[in-house]
């Protein structure tokens, strides 16, 4: 269970590199600064790629949860 609440959820289950990152970028564009996006992914590559995306773009990776083969990321849009 995550300790943050998301303003929006993006489910990329079944999609592979680079789609989870590209869809995350698009979904973040629709949020206001400070809002939190929840990204669900089944691509093991996203475990490293989503943090790299956040580091590069300045959005804050608040929390990462791994459960039942799914990776769930909580990303706060930069202000």
């Amino acid at each position, binding site marked *: 269970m995550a300790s943050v609440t998301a303003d929006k959820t993006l489910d990329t289950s*079944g*999609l*592979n*590199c*680079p*789609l989870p*990152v*590209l869809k995350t*970028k698009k979904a973040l564009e629709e949020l206001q600064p400070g809002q939190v996006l929840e990204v669900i992914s089944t*691509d093991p590559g996203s475990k490293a790629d989503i943090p790299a*995306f956040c580091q*590069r*773009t300045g959005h804050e990776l608040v929390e990462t949860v791994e459960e039942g083969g799914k990776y769930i990321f909580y990303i706060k849009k930069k202000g």
Partner: protein
Amino acid sequence: MATERLAIIASKGTLDWAYPPLILASTAASLGIETAIFFTFYGLNVIHKEKMKQLKIAPVGNPGMPMAFPPSVKKTPVVGQLAGLMEAIFPGPPQLMGVIPGMTDFMTAMMKKTMKDHGVASVEELIELCKEADVKLIPCQMTMELFGYKYEDLIDGLEPPGGAATFINYVLEADKPMILFV
């Protein structure tokens, strides 16, 4: 902020080699890097209206190719077990098989199915994503003339055809330039 530019040279026209430039470019653009792909030689086929639909995987001369049946096939009873047996015996398709007529098409169909089963985007999809992310797609003028491709034979949304100088100038205008050759 200092400008960062990634320029990728795409020179190959097979299905497998169409992917790396498109994946890297769309991702780099989503990371906020100005990105361009220069399509030269067989790479032009990836942005050719007709030829992009016929990109193939060549089993001949590709000893690294795995004998990989799509997961959906392997789940099918009997056929799946046979496929599993084939994979266990042949780690890759024997090179000789490549000369059998239709084998390239068969391997291509199998690879496309495998990619779909794994949620890998199609070439068309990745090109659209590149365009949406403002990746500049530049066809090489010289090879267009060499192959007899007209600008209208190529997909929409491309930059005007350019040459080596245009490309190198585009890259070096940035504070942090990077070039990849694929």
